[in-house]
């Protein structure tokens, strides 16, 4: 047979193991401490690994005994995390446990590094204390978010559900990590239509709201822009409660797009005549940034997807000048 090519192996960190064992065995390895949330398709627990005392997050998925077989969302998330977990700004998948519960159903436990909060709780905490997040903190968090997104996009993956709830944080170190890739997709393949009920409207890009059938990394960049504004003001920038209301929110604040600012917008499937609002200055919408901050925010919230700044370029923006100095590489 043909010779298998021999290539030098690049240095790769040890991959997490995947073990098959009883559900009881998985339960025996970890002590569940409390339920801390729900991901795209499963419950999430804070747990202690009995052997080491390490605190982890367990994401539990019961595989139903139905005609679907292993759910695509679980399959995609694990596959993508296996590819992406080496980046410090993507949540680390430590292990995958596959077992059977008392009723004989197959259970999957995804074992993640534990992060004690998320950006949604962090922002809400500041809002309820009636205080702003310090400008330096906003910058540090935004820099990490852009680094994580640049890495994910660089690996050919769209997250498609970036929002504060999916950005995990460590309160002490201010580390920020991208999580919940259940709706993510590798870019080189056809993409499933959005499941509207699951996705938060507030961070959704206008081209998706207008029914674009071809979209790419700029949809995540729009979400980054919305998150940036929310970090500065403690309030969501575009809090719509239906797709139409979401669009109107955006148009009221940024101005209704036309062929001049967004060539081709009139041909998108959901386009029709909208009230002609004039844009409001970002400094009025999002008080509290300096000139560089407004310039970056404007580039993140460009209507025309092709003109929206890529995450990799955002990292080079003058707004991050003082943060970059501290960057090791």
């Amino acid at each position, binding site marked *: *047979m*043909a*010779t*298998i*090519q*021999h*290539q030098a*192996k*690049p240095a*790769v960190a040890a*991959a997490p*193991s*995947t073990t*098959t064992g009883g559900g009881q065995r998985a339960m025996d390895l970890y002590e569940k401490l409390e339920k801390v949330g729900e991901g795209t398709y499963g419950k999430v627990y804070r747990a202690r690994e009995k052997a080491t005392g390490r605190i982890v997050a367990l994401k539990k998925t019961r*595989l139903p*005994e*139905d*005609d*679907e*077989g*292993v*759910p*695509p969302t679980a*399959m*995609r998330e*694990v*596959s993508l995390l*296996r*590819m992406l977990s080496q980046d410090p700004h993507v949540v680390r998948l430590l292990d995958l446990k*596959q077992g059977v519960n008392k009723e004989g159903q*197959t259970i999957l436990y995804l074992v993640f590094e534990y992060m004690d909060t998320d950006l949604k709780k962090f922002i809400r905490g500041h809002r309820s204390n009636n205080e702003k997040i310090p400008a330096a903190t906003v910058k540090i968090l935004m820099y990490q978010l852009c680094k994580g997104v640049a890495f994910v*996009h660089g*690996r*050919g993956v*769209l997250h498609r559900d970036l929002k504060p709830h999916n950005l995990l944080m460590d309160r002490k170190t201010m580390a920020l990590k991208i999580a919940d890739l259940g709706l993510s997709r*590798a*870019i*080189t*393949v*056809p*993409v*499933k*239509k959005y499941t509207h009920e699951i996705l938060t409207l507030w961070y959704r890009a206008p081209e998706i709201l207008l029914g*674009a*059938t*071809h*979209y*790419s*990394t*700029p949809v995540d960049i729009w979400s980054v822009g919305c998150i940036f504004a929310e970090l500065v003001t403690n309030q969501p920038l575009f809090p719509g409660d239906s797709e139409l209301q979401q669009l109107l929110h955006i148009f009221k604040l940024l101005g209704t797009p036309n062929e001049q600012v967004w*060539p*081709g917008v009139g041909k998108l499937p959901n386009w029709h005549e909208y009230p002609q609002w004039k844009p409001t200055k970002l400094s009025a919408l999002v008080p509290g940034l300096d000139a560089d901050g407004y310039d970056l925010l404007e580039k993140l919230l460009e209507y*025309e*997807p*092709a*003109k*929206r*700044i*890529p995450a990799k*370029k955002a990292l080079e923006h003058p707004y991050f000048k003082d943060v970059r100095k501290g960057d090791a590489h």
Partner: protein
Amino acid sequence: MMPVEEAAADDWSECAFSLTCEEDCADLGDGELFPLYSAGDEEEDEYLEQLVFKETSFCSSSDSAADCDGDEEGDEEYSSLTSEEWFRQARLAAVKWILETRGCFGFGHRTAYLAISYFDSFLLRRRIDRETMPWAAQLLSVACVSVAAKMEECQAPALSEFHAGGFDFDSASIRRMELLVLSTLGWRMGAVTPLDFLPCFSSRVHPHGGAGAGAGGRVAIGFIFATAEAGSVLDHRPSTVAAAAILAATYGPLLTKEALSSKMSCLSPSYLIEKEHVHACYSMMVGDMSRRGSKRSLPCSGPDEIATSTYHSVLVDDATDTAAFASAVAAARSKQIRLELTGIH
């Protein structure tokens, strides 16, 4: 496609569309086989580097002792196993079923290639006995197609919709096999395929797109699947197979090693893909093509292009092409023999 302004002031506008998703499930359909790449060369090189890195990572980070780089003991056992006629027959039947199933459900080519890739990767790691091979290979094929469809397609079929010729597997069995495939492959299902390289390579040999790119692309896909039938997809890296296929489709069977080396320079930076391996793969592809000659020609835009529908028939989508498929299978079998000879030094 989003329009890209030629005079765009922002220097990043080009690369925003380098990695476009198509929501409508289009898969290299007739018409716009490769939407014309709007990315510049620099972004394309970056994309190629990323893909080659991913295919390398996929090989080297395997959890199995017998990884793609060749654990000698594992390789020896695998090599001896794949030299058995019964194994080749069972694998060929499995690949044939995967391709037929792709046609029945209207899956993309990438789904079929991924399924074959999972099949070969699984058997690199787990042994199937000769007596259980017929039904085990079929159950494995069903599970591999199901997993590939879930990774790739907008809508994956329910397990009960798969009809394995001659066998009747229930959904619970298929699901268990799905889980076994997933755990055996370490849940690393996002493999790189040769098809991922084709749009970029095609835009480089056909800078202005058009009919040549379309016809060449289809022929290249035929070469890729004929190679997948002939032997394990793990025998060559996806980038190597893609480069060989696009060169065979574009320039035909007559490239010398030196000429191929020259053509390779415009396909990708030289450090990414080994020319020697591309030439070996190309020789295998065109060796079979020239031996059978052209049966039916596809429209060609240039006199140097040789297109043959024989390979195209590997992608048969309906029963009326069964006879052509059978002859393609026979051709693939003879190619398998050539592959064996190549392995002897």
